[in-house]
């Protein structure tokens, strides 16, 4: 079966209930102090963009999740993995 190349963008962030000191500091000490008070919320994380071959979008997503787990790129105890975009190349 012919495989398709996908480009997948993901973010790894602290769980919503957990604190995010990086984002808190950016918001408090940078944005707010410089007058950007339209900003109501900031969250931070790691961004990865991965190109891979898979049979389908579904399979591509599965593979990414498994890979991030296998390589311990993220720890499900404290982090969540968000798939932001999946594009065919």
């Amino acid at each position, binding site marked *: 079966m012919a495989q398709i190349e996908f480009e997948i963008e993901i973010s790894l962030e602290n769980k919503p209930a957990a604190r995010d*000191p*990086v984002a808190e*500091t950016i918001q408090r000490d*940078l944005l707010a*102090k410089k007058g950007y008070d339209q900003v109501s919320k900031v969250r931070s994380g790691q961004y990865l963009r991965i190109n891979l071959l898979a049979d389908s979008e579904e399979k591509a997503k599965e593979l990414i999740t498994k890979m991030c787990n296998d390589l311990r790129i993220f720890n499900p105890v404290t982090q969540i993995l968000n798939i932001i975009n999946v594009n065919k190349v």
Partner: protein
Amino acid sequence: MTIKIAVIQFPGANCDLDAVHVLNDVIGVETSLVWHNYFKEADFDGVVLPGGFSFGDYLRAGIIAAHSPALDEARVMLKDGRPIIGICNGFQILIEAEFLPGALLQNESLKFICKWVNIKVINNKTAFTHKMKQNEVLAIPIAHGEGRYFTDNLKELEENDQVVFRYSTETGNYESAANPNGSLDNIAGICNLEQNCIGLMPHPERASEAILSPKGTEHGRLFFDSMVEFIKRRIR
């Protein structure tokens, strides 16, 4: 007239007291620790931006501190030729505040590295290096996670004599093993065009007393002695 130096205390600075100790107790020049929001350039002849993790180094090392009012004050000093040194995090701040060109990226190994290294003096004309000899090799420790120097304009930097230090072996060679963090062309420290402002990743304040040096050297003192001498000449 007595010389007055300021060591700026940014939130999260942690080599601030070390710099104050060396300047006051080892070099013997009147030095105050100044909270970043209270810093007024008019009171000082020279300034040290110390190492540490200003604002946790969150987002990118040095970026948040670069927006501190202290940097606006320091910019006045930069313009009128007073000496400014950024050590480690201070270097990162000077880069982010665009006092110095380029960028400091995460170490190639992705790890924090704390280690004594050797650096070779490339430009001994600056406010902080004129007491050194050209090509002299200094033993000084590093301690950083984001110190990989990068610029998209290396040629200009070299032509303008802005490369001040390169990581080298003890005998002055530039092997890759002598480059601790993957810096472009082994660059460890640079200066501005006018040469009154330098930034470097190694910590001269940790290398200013023989008791702390593996080989009993005091190479770090040369930076501060140069600075004091530079100020004296300017005042005269």
